[in-house]
């Protein structure tokens, strides 16, 4: 590793900020796991096919909407870290990778916005 890390020798690619993202993935994963268990339990333990009433009913309560919103934001971070790692592993040319980073973020932010709109029918 170069002992000089400023000016033209500064390293601007790579995941030098590794710990923050590593921790973010774990924390968001735990939140999403909790959410999964809450929804999955309600789905698995209904007898017969799930109708609209029961399904929509799960997301009707305000606390559930707030929790789902937090999960959507958590997913944004979690997925971004994962996808960025994939690009970082397989795409070496920096220009191409930057384009893919941008496309991925737009994709994710768009999806999150849509999901939040659905949740609150804005």
């Amino acid at each position, binding site marked *: 590793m170069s002992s000089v890390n400023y000016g033209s020798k500064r390293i601007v690619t790579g995941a030098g900020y590794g710990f923050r993202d590593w921790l973010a993935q*774990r924390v968001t994963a735990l939140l999403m796991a909790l959410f999964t268990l809450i929804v999955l339990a309600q789905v698995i333990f209904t007898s017969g096919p799930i109708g609209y009433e029961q399904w*929509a009913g799960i997301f009707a309560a305000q606390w559930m909407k707030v929790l789902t919103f937090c999960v959507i934001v958590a997913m944004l971070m979690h997925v971004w870290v994962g996808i960025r790692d994939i690009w970082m592993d397989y795409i070496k040319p920096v220009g191409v990778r930057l384009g893919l980073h941008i496309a991925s973020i737009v994709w994710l932010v768009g*999806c999150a916005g*849509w999901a939040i709109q*659905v949740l609150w029918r804005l």
Partner: protein
Amino acid sequence: MTELARKRPEFRNINALTDLPSYRLPAAGWVSILHRVSGALMFVLMPFIIWMFDNSITSEFSYAKFTAIFTVGCGFLPGWMMKLVALALVWAYLHHFIAGLRHLYMDAHHAVSKEFGKSSAMVTLSLSIALTLVLGAKLFGLY
């Protein structure tokens, strides 16, 4: 430096496409690459997931539209293909979830043995497939 040390063999992965199929991945290796694949699959299909969420939640009418794509199909895609896509998403989520829990366990317990790596990988693979079948049966009205 001896001659031998200076002329080290170079592996540039140029024959990756011919080499990769001949590698034998251990169970933990399968869990790992499938963890990445399942994540990427969910990333790519996210708009579809949100479309399903949207239509399933909004109203009785849109819920009927949502269930219809699994019988009538969507555009030129037949219903059974949509069911397979949904099943693939179910598997992707379950595998990613369980492999993720395995990651968290390994993070929390700083030293895991090689045997644990193999046994936990086997559990991950079998549990995710088993739960996929259970949830698939539930989703498609088998019970």
